[in-house]
């Protein structure tokens, strides 16, 4: 690794964390539970989603352990069904959907656009409570005996055939939906109405653009999931069928309604991550993101196309050939804006002054893994190959490449990148670089064999499998243990750094965003006075001039 670094820390012998900041403003539990401050709410979210991530992660560990041997050796088949269902439900609805928007988005959005807070601080706080209530409902479900429908709640399996806790899980997700509706609504309103003077739409950081696109999806998609789950719950309690064919219902209708949300939902999960990558790639190559406008609009394009591809989850479910053809074509189209992003990030790197701090390592991980995940998505979007690959481990691998290799990498990249801003302290650089590399290696070991398993025809969602698949499954499980270490490391050293990390100063990375031009951790009002945006986004020359001026005035 080159010795070059852009890290710019103040002199540690004199540097102090500012006495007055959003963390020290008030003390006591109530000052946190009743806060309107977007940074404190983001902190609440960060703690809670980390909690759920580790629950979901533990369940993933159980899945991999069970699959170590071809027999059902660790748990019975129906227990296994419950474990993978809860893994899916917790990871999708309680980690991935709120991960970047509710933590980093919440924390950064107002600062990036030069506002004192989100437009609706109370609604922001109100979004956290449904999340927590829903989380406890999900945990209750698990304690009470779990649910084994898979996170997709396929009807009529979920409505009539299973005797597990579908109702409480459904209601938990319904309640969690309010959380994401409120967050999305708040972001859209904030971006429209709260920008500081001079902050035009095309001066917004790309993180803001991608969160804007994700918010549109949250606002338009989540209500449809909500009503679908209400119907499932009603159907289950009253034994009437809108979805169950035995009672005259239509299971395909459920699929349409469910995927109308749940396909856009994967863009809700990935788009904010793409925003993080734009910021990180620009900062660590000291260049404006190549093709800013194209990257900005590609986020919106993903959001728009994302609404018209849902039926590619249903190619083998009895939709007509013509529908399959159209949806296949539309699915290919989504690859275009995603590719625009990848190419533009790559071009940003070209002739940039690249340094390899931890956030950048994670960002590289993202670009590689997301590209693989995205391209295998094209295999699955092609109707012919989909018939062979769907419901196999190929799907599992594809989804995890995009969500874990993509989104989780982006999340960790963002957490490291903005950690000095959030806490005022640096994380330890060497060990975190190690964590990034370990994560990348562990990830590939875990999920790459699953592509091959899928090609060979190993179906997903079974506790047992034919013995010839064992070698690859052992690979996968071994990789999962490495991956687990990769995720444990950050939580240890990040907690350590809260007390012992080096004092970071205002702008540890010499980045251009408005959030870096204020103290760390920021004041409750973010800025001493409302900033005026007099330059383009990612303008490193402007930053240099600013710093020269500062030095001159101090000297």
């Amino acid at each position, binding site marked *: 690794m080159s010795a070059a670094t852009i890290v710019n820390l103040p002199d540690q012998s004199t540097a102090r964390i500012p006495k007055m900041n959003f963390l020290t*403003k*008030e003390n006591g539990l109530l000052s946190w539970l009743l*806060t*309107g401050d977007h940074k404190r709410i983001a902190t609440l979210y960060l703690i809670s989603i980390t909690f759920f991530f580790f629950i979901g992660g533990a369940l993933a560990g159980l899945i991999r352990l069970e699959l170590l041997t071809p027999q059902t050796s660790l748990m019975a088949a129906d227990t296994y069904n419950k474990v993978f269902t809860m893994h899916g439900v917790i990871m999708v609805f309680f980690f991935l959907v709120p991960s970047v928007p509710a933590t980093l988005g919440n924390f950064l959005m107002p600062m990036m656009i030069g*506002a*004192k*807070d989100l*437009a*609706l*601080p*109370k*609604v922001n706080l109100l979004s956290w409570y449904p999340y927590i209530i829903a989380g406890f409902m999900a945990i209750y479900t698990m304690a009470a005996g779990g649910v084994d429908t898979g996170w997709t709640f396929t009807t009529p399996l979920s409505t009539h055939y299973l005797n597990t806790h579908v109702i409480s899980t459904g209601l938990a997700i319904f309640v969690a939906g309010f959380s994401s*509706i409120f967050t999305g*609504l*708040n972001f*859209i*309103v904030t971006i*429209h*109405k*709260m920008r500081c003077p001079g902050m035009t739409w095309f001066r917004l950081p790309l993180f803001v653009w991608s969160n804007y696109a994700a918010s549109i999806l949250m*606002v*338009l*998609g*989540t*209500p*449809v999931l*909500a*009503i*679908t789950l*209400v*119907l499932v719950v*009603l159907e289950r309690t*009253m*034994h*009437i*069928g*809108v979805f169950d064919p035995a*009672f*005259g*219902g*239509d299971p395909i*209708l459920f699929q*349409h*309604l469910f995927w109308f949300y749940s396909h856009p939902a994967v863009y809700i999960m990935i788009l904010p991550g793409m925003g993080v990558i734009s910021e990180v790639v620009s900062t660590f190559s000291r260049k404006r993101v190549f093709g800013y406008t194209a990257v900005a609009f590609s986020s919106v394009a993903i959001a728009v196309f994302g609404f018209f591809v849902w039926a590619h989850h249903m190619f083998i479910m009895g939709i007509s050939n013509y529908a399959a053809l159209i949806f296949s074509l539309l699915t290919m189209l989504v690859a275009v804006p995603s590719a625009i992003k990848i190419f533009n990030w790559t071009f940003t790197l070209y002739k940039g002054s690249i340094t390899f701090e931890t956030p950048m390592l994670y960002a590289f991980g993202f670009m590689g893994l997301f590209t693989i995940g995205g391209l295998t998505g094209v295999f699955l979007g092609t109707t012919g190959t989909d018939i062979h690959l769907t419901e196999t481990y190929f799907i599992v691998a594809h989804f995890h490449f995009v969500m874990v290799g993509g989104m989780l990498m982006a999340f960790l990249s963002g957490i490291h990148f903005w950690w000095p801003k959030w806490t005022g302290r640096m994380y330890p650089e060497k060990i975190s670089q190690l964590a990034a590399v370990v994560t990348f290696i562990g990830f590939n070991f875990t999920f790459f064999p699953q592509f091959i398993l899928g090609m060979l025809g190993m179906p997903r969602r079974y506790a047992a499998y034919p013995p010839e698949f064992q070698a690859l499954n052992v690979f996968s499980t071994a990789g999962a243990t490495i991956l687990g270490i990769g995720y444990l490391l950050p939580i240890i050293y990040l907690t350590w750094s809260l007390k012992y990390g080096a004092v970071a100063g205002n702008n540890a990375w010499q980045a251009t965003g408005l959030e870096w031009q204020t103290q760390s951790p920021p004041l*409750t*009002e973010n800025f001493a006075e*409302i900033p005026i945006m007099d330059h383009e986004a990612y303008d490193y020359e402007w930053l240099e001039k600013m710093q020269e001026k500062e030095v001159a005035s101090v000297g």
Partner: protein
Amino acid sequence: MSDSTAIANGAPAEAQHEHPPYQRHHFASVEQQADTTNFAMWLFLLTEVMFFGGLFTAYLIMRNWYYQPFVDASHQLSIFWGTANTAVLIASSFTMAMAVWSAEVRRKGTLLLFLCLTLVFGFIFLGIKGIEWHEKWEKHHIPGEHYSVQSFVNPQSDPEVYKEYHDAPLPADAAQKTVEYFFLYFAMTGMHALHMVIGVGILIFMIFRARSGAYTTGHVTFVENFGLYWHFVDIIWIYLFALLYLISRH
């Protein structure tokens, strides 16, 4: 609202109060604040459209699948009560609009009058809805264990409806599909009624606040946004009325 934030900021309250007390600290001006909350309300209504959209989709698909059972089941609804309820809701929308106007021109008395009238209309609507639901209960048209297809396999057993429509008897399996209609009927009108109940709750809260002069100081955003919500719930009803009651009358 604003006071609590001012205190939370720890700054002396006077120092923050060059602007009106209802302006939240993070807005530059009252206009920006009003604009913002208004926009947020419209977005919220958009999510409501999507929410009801799922129900409407299910209804339209089911109606296409089971056309005759849906037509016959629709004949069970009372046009009289439906029309009356539509009239009541439109009237309540009018009084709500007048309430917003009264708040804007700062007339506390008229504001209170119109809010109370809106509340009364809201209660009347829910009452009439209760009468209709009760009728379904008596005829065993509530989906569930006690559901009865009597009115559809043997229309003459239901003389009131029969004398008006002369529906032919449905075969047993088709008659069973009427349960889908009533399931959706209760889901849709129930969801609508839930919105009404929430609206009525907020109305009562507003009447108490309005008595202490909260909305007649020039800060009318809350009343305005509630008005939007109320009109939205009204519009949903108009669609329900057309799709559930009127669609099968020729």
